[in-house]
């Protein structure tokens, strides 16, 4: 007898899929020209070097080809993307001063409540600009700086540091959308943690793209000095439209000697989003970067956080989950460069595909000749929830160093009928059984998140699994 196939019903995404009018907002023309790039810079009253940088990036963008190895981006027409939308407010430091529509948006997403409960600071970006930024006094007194990056650019002390670091880890020549980011970046956060300072509570930036047909290009620059410790959380969402939206942000992380940075992301863009984001960290001697990554949204996703282990005994760990549902092609993974002696890297990823969605794990481990005595392990598991979906695994290893140990393993399969049968024999419905198994599959990622975010991630999985049984 043929097995009954599961059917995928519509998913209720109303928690994230709501929108407000743009009355009073300022939109630049769609497309990408030197005039638009110049206007963005002038609106921000930037130093000349930054305008020059933007225009040079635009030149690089115009001569670089689109990637040919990943999901198609033929549906993304840059002539119809608005690169800058300014909301009808300036940045505020208290929620009461934020216009109601915008405040309601973040209230519905639970950001102010999270700030009150367990965060040391919050930044909230709406379309192209930060609308709220605040940090608790205790963190300020420790010497931590957490501000909008544009705000920091106007402080002479930080301008010099930003100029030294900005887009050095992700140069505009890296790929076409890094160049695009260099040309039209807007908003984002700047974090500076002084030597020896350890912040017990996380900082969080939340990015909301409300405008149809727009792009969001925030830049996050974090410097964690020697012996310091930080946990930074990033969240993002958008309402769904039937036109393409684009996210091409950049995250540059500098981790000092013996410093530790955990960077957690729950990405839940709407399913008309092209998420072409770039994240990169550089670790000095005995520095450690931990990436925690949950990718749930977007029509097309290209996301591969990269660790450059430049200092002896530096470490990187990447724990990620990607859930691709109907209409999604999410190409995610990570890159590690073992660039110094005795470095270590671990990669553990989970991929789930369902309802015709496509999930690809892509990675690279490069051990340079300097990486003597280094070790890396990569583990990748993919789960197929039906026979309409697709799951690909494309890992790569390039090993040129002496005395290295590199291990890699990957598996692809589906939920065993025996597991479903076992749970159903204990009175659990098939839908619940499947959700339980998928949650268990995702557990290695969710357990690395703060409780509230683990709950959010499990809710996202539940949302994706809703109606999965027919």
């Amino acid at each position, binding site marked *: 007898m043929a097995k009954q196939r599961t059917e995928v019903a519509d998913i209720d995404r109303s928690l994230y899929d709501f929108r407000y009018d743009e009355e009073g907002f300022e939109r630049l023309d769609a497309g990408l020209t030197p005039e638009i790039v110049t206007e963005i810079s002038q609106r921000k009253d930037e130093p000349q070097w930054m305008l020059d940088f933007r225009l040079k990036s635009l030149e690089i963008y115009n001569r670089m080809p689109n990637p040919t190895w990943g999901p198609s981006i033929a549906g993304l027409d840059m002539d119809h993307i608005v690169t800058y939308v300014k909301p009808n407010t300036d940045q505020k430091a208290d929620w009461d001063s934020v216009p109601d529509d915008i405040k309601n948006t973040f209230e519905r997403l639970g950001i102010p409540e999270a700030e009150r409960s367990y965060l040391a600071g919050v930044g909230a970006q709406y379309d192209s600009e930060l609308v709220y930024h605040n940090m608790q006094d205790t963190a300020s007194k420790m010497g931590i700086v957490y501000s909008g990056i544009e705000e920091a650019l106007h402080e002479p002390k930080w301008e010099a540091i930003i100029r030294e670091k900005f887009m050095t880890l992700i140069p505009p020549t890296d790929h076409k959308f890094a160049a695009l980011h260099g040309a039209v970046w807007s908003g984002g956060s700047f974090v500076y943690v002084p030597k020896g300072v350890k912040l017990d509570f996380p900082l969080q930036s939340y990015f909301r793209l409300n405008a149809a047909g727009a792009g969001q290009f925030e830049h996050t620059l974090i410097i964690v000095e020697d012996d310091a410790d930080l946990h930074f959380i990033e969240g993002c969402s958008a309402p769904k439209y039937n036109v393409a939206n684009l996210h091409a942000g950049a995250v540059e992380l500098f981790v000092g000697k013996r410093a530790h940075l955990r960077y957690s992301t729950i990405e839940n863009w709407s399913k*008309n989003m092209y998420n072409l984001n770039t994240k990169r960290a550089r670790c000095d001697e005995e520095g450690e970067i931990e990436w925690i990554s949950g990718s749930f949204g977007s029509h097309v996703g290209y996301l591969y956080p990269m660790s450059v282990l430049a200092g002896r005994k530096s470490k990187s760990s990447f724990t990620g989950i990607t859930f691709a549902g109907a209409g999604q*092609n999410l190409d995610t993974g990570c890159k590690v460069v073992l660039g110094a002696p005795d470095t270590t890297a671990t990669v553990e990823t989970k991929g789930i595909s369902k309802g015709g969605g496509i999930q690809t794990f892509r990675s690279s481990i490069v051990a340079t000749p300097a990486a*003597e005595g280094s070790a890396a392990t990569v583990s990748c598991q993919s789960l197929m929830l039906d026979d309409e979906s697709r799951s690909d695994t494309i890992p*790569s290893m390039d090993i040129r160093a002496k005395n290295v140990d590199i291990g*890699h393993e990957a598996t692809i399969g589906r939920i065993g009928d025996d597991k479903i049968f076992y749970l159903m024999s204990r009175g659990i419905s098939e839908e619940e059984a499947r959700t339980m198994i998928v949650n268990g599959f995702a557990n290695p990622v969710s357990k690395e998140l703060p409780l509230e975010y683990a709950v959010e991630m499990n809710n996202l999985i539940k949302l994706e699994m809703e109606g999965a049984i027919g």
Partner: protein
Amino acid sequence: MDALTIRNASAMPAPTWGWLRMNDTKIEIPVDLERIRAVTVEADEDLTETHASFEGAVADLQKRVDAARGDAEDTRACVRAAQRETESLDDLDTPALSAYQLRATRDEIANDVAAAFETGVHVDARSYLNFLAGSTVVLATESGDDEAAVVRVAGEAGGAAGASVDVVAAADSSIDLTISLDGNAAGSDAAGLIGSELRVFAGARARVSVTVYITADAGFTVIDDAGYVLDEGARVDVRHIVLGGGRTYTGLASDLRGDTARMEIGTRYLASGTEQRDFNYVIRHRGRKTISNMDANGVLTGTSKKVLRGTIDLIHGCKGSEGSERETVLLANQGVDNKTVPVILCDEDDVAGNHGATIGHVRPEQLFYLGCRGLSQEAAEALFVAAKLEDAALSAPDEQIRANVVRLGSALIDDFADFEEEIA
């Protein structure tokens, strides 16, 4: 040096980042090589005197494939995506396919065995080797036969020689084919090229065993290109023993078209000095309950380089199939460059795919242990190389191939010739 260049050779079906320089390779063939006839075929006449052809066998299979094709409309999201004329966001439930996913879906819709046939290196490499060969040797079995054949390509410095072989194994027959690609430069510095181009059709329940020994000296470029089509219940075992050759290109693509077909690939390789090894394996699971296993094991020393691309493609409909890939690499020297890309493409849920790789150096404690017994690091590395060569010599299918291995080993290791006396 003027050279004929074959670009995009040994390309992976699903490419990754270009900056890694792993997606494909470029084969440069010196234009001043003299085309020589240096191929001998050792086989019974009843194997070579045949009217069977690879194309005919594929055409017969196509008839059965067409007859089995259902007429139910395929409404999967990837099919909708492949059939639309332009990509838009009007239908958010249709994903944007990558180029290789689009190609795969269109191949699946076409369901054309001949059009889907591929080899591991490149169609241009096949054409070049066909030109060198002049004609194709067809080895065809009859049902119930149990046959064996040996094809030897003996290259010379300054020359280019290639073999073109088709194997058509009838249902319920078996054939054991050995291919020796040997290039003896006889002390000359001149370059040389040898290669073989192989197409195999394994009929229903046929058993095909192919062993390829590459024992060329360092001045040789070696191309070993092969494509397989497996009918229902067929089993193919392939062994690639790659011990020599300055630049070697080993490519194998396999279409597991029939249900319960099985492909086993064992690769043993050694690279020393500045040698380069390039492997590209593509296993397409199309039939139900098909099985593939790839197992590669190698030693790299000197400043040698190696790329291994292995793709298991679990195509929609191959329910109950399993694909597995393992690699173990010993990096015996610090100057080596080892690249590995083990890929699984999966368009079917009721399957199991897995791969694993272990890449490591000789550990300091192992070297210390050997050092305590009077072995220098160089001697220890030579030990690992010798072990690979000795294993190849011991399992060589005939004296001539064993002699080739010993000749190669003697050039690499001072006292390797003594080994010949031991096993004699």
